[in-house]
C-alpha cells in the first residue's frame, strides 16, 4: 500500500526467507557438494570428485535395478491413475443424485492412503490367504501370489496408488463442471456426437488441469516411500526397491551420506528433466482460455 515502508512486505516474508535459506537453499547446495564426497558421519567429508557417480553407473547393480523399478513404477502408476481419475470424473459429471456421496466415498482413500495403517492393511488383504485371494476363491479363481512374485509385487504397490485416485478426480471434476454448457449444445446442433464433443471440447478445455495433475502425480510417484517400505520392504528380489528406499538405506542405515546424496541427485535430475520436458511440451498441447496463441 502506498506510503508504506517499501521493506514492510519483507518483514512479513521473513519466516519464509529464513526457512528458504536455512532449510531449502543451503541443504540443496550442500547435498550437491556431499554427492562429490565420501562422508560417513564419523569423519569430515572427503572430496572424491565424480567417484560416487562413476560407482553408481558402472559398478552398482542395485542402483540399476532400483532405477529401472522406479521408472516402471512411475510410468505405470501415473498414466493409469490419471486415466482412471478422469474417467470417473466424467461419469460423475452428470446430473446425478448423491453426487456428493460418491465424490466423498472416492476421496476417502486419498485422505488415508499415505498412512502406515493403510500400508499395513494392504499387507493383510493381499496376503496369500488374505481378503483378495479369498474373494478370488469365491469367484472361482486361483489365488494369486501378490507379494512373492517380483512382477506381481510391483503391481500390488501400484494398486495402492491407484486406489488413491480421488484427489486427482476431484480436481478433474471441478474443471469439468466449470466448462460452459452452451459449447456442448452448439456442438450437438452441429451434429457432434458425445465422443466427438469429449475429444474436441472437453479434453482441450481441461488440458491445464491434466498438466497440473500430471506434474504433481509424477513428482510424488518418484518419491514414493511408505507403501513399498512397509508392504514389501523393497522385495522380493528388489522388485519394489524404489530409489527413495535405496537412498534411505544408504543414508540412514549404512550412513554413507555422500553416496546417498549422489543417488538423490540422480533422482532429482530425472524428475527435473521430466518436469522440464512436460513444461516445454505443454506449449503444444495445453490450452489456456484467453490465450491467443491457441
Amino acid at each position, binding site marked *: *500500500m502506498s506510503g508504506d515502508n517499501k521493506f514492510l512486505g519483507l518483514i512479513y516474508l521473513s*519466516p*519464509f526467507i529464513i526457512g528458504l535459506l536455512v532449510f531449502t537453499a543451503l541443504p*540443496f547446495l550442500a547435498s550437491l557438494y556431499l554427492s562429490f564426497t565420501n562422508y560417513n558421519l564419523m569423519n569430515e567429508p572427503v572430496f572424491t570428485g565424480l567417484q560416487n557417480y562413476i560407482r553408481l553407473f558402472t559398478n552398482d547393480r542395485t542402483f540399476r535395478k532400483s532405477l529401472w523399478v522406479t521408472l516402471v513404477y512411475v510410468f505405470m502408476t501415473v498414466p493409469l491413475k490419471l486415466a482412471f481419475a478422469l474417467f470417473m470424473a466424467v461419469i460423475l459429471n452428470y446430473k446425478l443424485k448423491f453426487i456428493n456421496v460418491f465424490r466423498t466415498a472416492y476421496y476417502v482413500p486419498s485422505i488415508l492412503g499415505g498412512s502406515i495403517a493403510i500400508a499395513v*492393511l494392504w499387507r493383510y488383504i493381499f496376503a496369500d490367504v488374505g481378503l483378495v485371494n479369498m474373494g478370488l476363491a469365491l469367484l472361482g479363481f486361483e489365488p494369486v501370489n501378490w507379494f512373492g512374485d517380483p512382477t506381481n509385487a510391483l503391481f500390488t504397490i501400484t494398486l495402492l496408488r491407484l486406489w488413491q485416485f480421488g484427489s486427482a478426480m476431484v480436481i478433474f471434476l471441478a474443471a469439468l463442471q466449470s466448462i460452459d454448457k452452451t459449447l456442448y449444445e452448439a456442438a450437438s446442433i452441429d451434429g457432434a456426437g458425445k465422443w466427438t464433443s469429449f475429444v474436441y471440447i472437453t479434453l482441450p478445455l481441461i488440458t491445464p488441469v491434466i498438466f*497440473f495433475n500430471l506434474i504433481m502425480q509424477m513428482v510424488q510417484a518418484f518419491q514414493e516411500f511408505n507403501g513399498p517400505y512397509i508392504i514389501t520392504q523393497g522385495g522380493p528380489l528388489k522388485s519394489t526397491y524404489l530409489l527413495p528406499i535405496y537412498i534411505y538405506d544408504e543414508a540412514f542405515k549404512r550412513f554413507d551420506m555422500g553416496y546417498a546424496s549422489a543417488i538423490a541427485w540422480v*533422482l532429482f535430475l530425472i524428475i527435473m528433466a521430466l518436469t522440464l520436458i512436460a513444461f516445454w511440451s505443454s506449449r503444444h498441447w495445453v490450452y489456456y482460455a484467453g490465450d491467443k496463441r491457441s
Partner: protein
Amino acid sequence: MTDHILSQNTPAARDIDIVRSRETRSHRFSAALRYALLTAVGLLMLYPLIWLIGASFKTNSEIFSNPGFWPENPTLDGYIKGWKTSTPYSFGTFFANTLWIVIPKVIGTAISCTAVAYGFARFDFPFKKVLFSALIATLLLPNVVTRIPQYLIFRDLGWLDSYLPLWVPSALAGDAFFVFMLVQFLRAIPRDMEEAARVDGATTWQTLIFIVVPLLMPALISVCLFQFMWTMNDFLGPLIYISSVDKYPISLALKLSIDTTEAFEWNRVLAMSVLSLAPALAVFFLAQKYFIDGISSGGIKG
C-alpha cells in the same frame, strides 16, 4: 393445401417423437449405467476399509478365513491387547505424542503461511519476483534432495530425537504449497475493506488480523486440515528424526507393532490401525467441504 402440409408433417412429427423417446430412454439407460458403475467402484474402493473395521473385532484365526465384514465370534481382544502394545508404553502415549507433533505444527503453519501470503499478495518490495519464483521452485523441489543435509543441520543443532525438526521448518512457512494456495485466495479478495481500515489509521498488522484473517478463514481452515492429515500420516519424518520409543508417534508405533507381533497377533495390529485412522476419518467427515473446496480451488497433491 392444409391437407398437404399435414400429410407432410405428420411423419416428421412422428420421427421427432421417436427420436425424443429414444433419447429419454437412452438418457435413463445411461443414468442407470452410471449409478451401477459408480456404486460398484465405490464398494470395491471402500470394502477394504469396511473389512478392516470388521476384522479388528475378529479372532486371529478368523482374519484369514472370513472375507465377510461381520465377525463370527466378536472379540475386543485386539483392542485390549493392542492398546497395551509390546513396549512399556500404551498406545495412548503414542496418540498423545502424535498430537504433540501435529498441533504445534498446524498452528505454526497457519501463522507463518498467512503472514507470508499476506506479504506476497499485498505489498511491493525489492526482490519480490525473485522470492516468488523461489516459492514456486520450492513447491516443485523434491524433498528427497534436501533431506540428508537437513538431517545434518538438525544434528548440528542438537535437535535429533526431538520434535523440533518436524515443527520448525513448517513454522517458517516451509510448506510452499500452502503459501501458494493462500496467495491465490488473497488475490481474489477485493482490497476495499483493507484500504478503508488503513485510511482509518489501522496498522498493517491490525489490518491483517482483523480484516484479512476473517476473510481468509475458509482457505486457512483447508490449510490446517490438510496439514493435520499429512502430519498424522507422516512416517518418513519421524522415522529419520525420532529414535526413542517413548517419543514415537502412531505411525512409527504401528511399524514397530508389525515388526514385533505380526507373526501371530494379527487382530492387535488391525485394531490399532483402525484407531490410528479414526481421527483422520472423523476430521474428514466433519469438514469434508473444506477438503473438497481446498483441492478444487488450489489443486492439492495427495
